[in-house]
């Protein structure tokens, strides 16, 4: 008999099979002598072992046993409170971090998101910016909807500058 069948017979005796599988194994055990022999061996072993653990007693008196446990409990409590008083307790650190660091980190993340998002969201659909300068004045017009930016350069007298230099930074509509 192969190991899969052997394990199935064991699982059947341990009530670990579904109703369908259990019926299949029951049929096998009823008709196959080898399966029958294994089932009989496992069953008698289960009956012998179940609940027949040797009763053991602690090889120490009740008082001595308790005194050791009590000492260990008090020692653990003492070292924990000492660590807490010194502020080095890993548990108190984690509790502090959970209570304070997490909300602060969350707030910081929220502020960061607002800083990044706010200018674009608060930006009006059409914006015009005037940049004062001693020699040249600039007016900047931006239409995000049509992805268009127009920049006027003009001198103090109000005349447009003929050669404003590089226009690399000017957005070009596609």
């Amino acid at each position, binding site marked *: 008999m192969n190991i899969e069948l052997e394990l199935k017979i064991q699982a059947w005796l341990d009530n670990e099979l579904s109703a369908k599988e259990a019926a299949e194994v029951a049929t096998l055990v009823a008709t196959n002598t080898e399966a029958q022999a294994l089932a009989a061996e496992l069953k008698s072993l289960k009956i012998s072992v179940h609940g027949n653990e*040797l*009763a053991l007693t*602690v090889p120490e008196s009740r008082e001595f046993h308790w005194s050791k*446990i009590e000492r260990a409990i008090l020692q653990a409590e003492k070292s924990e409170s000492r660590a807490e008083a010194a502020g080095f307790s890993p548990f108190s650190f984690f509790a502090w971090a959970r209570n304070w660091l997490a909300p602060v980190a969350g707030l910081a993340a929220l502020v960061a998101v607002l800083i990044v998002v706010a200018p674009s969201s608060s930006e009006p659909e059409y914006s015009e910016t005037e940049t004062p300068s001693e020699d040249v004045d600039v007016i900047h017009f931006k239409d995000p909807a049509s992805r268009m930016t127009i920049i006027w350069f003009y001198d103090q007298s109000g005349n447009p500058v003929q050669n404003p230099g590089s226009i690399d930074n000017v957005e070009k509509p596609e």
Partner: protein
Amino acid sequence: MAKPLDFKTAEDSALVRVALRGNMVAFEELISRHRDKLYARAFSMLRNEDAALDIAQEAWVKGWQRLKQFQGDAGFATWMTRIVINLCLDDLRKKKRQKSESLEELDEEWGGAERRMPYFTVNPTEGLERHELRQRIDRALARLSEAHRKVLVLYEFEEMDYKQIAKLMDCSIGTVMSRLFYARRRLAALLMSFKKERDSE
């Protein structure tokens, strides 16, 4: 005025409630009731008296520290036994890490001599007195490999199912099934050899 609780006759759940308020006398009463069971479980898994005493003591300390976590779904003794079992499994894992892989470990999964053993038609424990039966089973358990013993103790004595054992031992249900099968076959062979020994005397 409420009557003071008689610790000797109080139920475990009542003693737990009192112990939760920091009363160590109530906790000591709980220990005196269940200390043998916890020690026996540790011993059955570790097969070493000193190690079993240490683990049982550690379990009681942990039990005191985690008493607030005791929900009362299962009995107090069952809850404490789970702490002992977890400590035993941790201890065995630590020791196993220090050992190298061996042929014995392969046999635990795939069967050694048990694979070729014929099925026994005679019950090796038939006619034994209860005390003698328990002693023989204990003697046979002591000769099983650690992996086989663990799974057998958890299934037969702690009455856990395959799924619970697999979760506790961090292995597959298939591994639990094969280990349990070979553990039983080895145990049957050991009990049979003890019977033959006795019959020939």
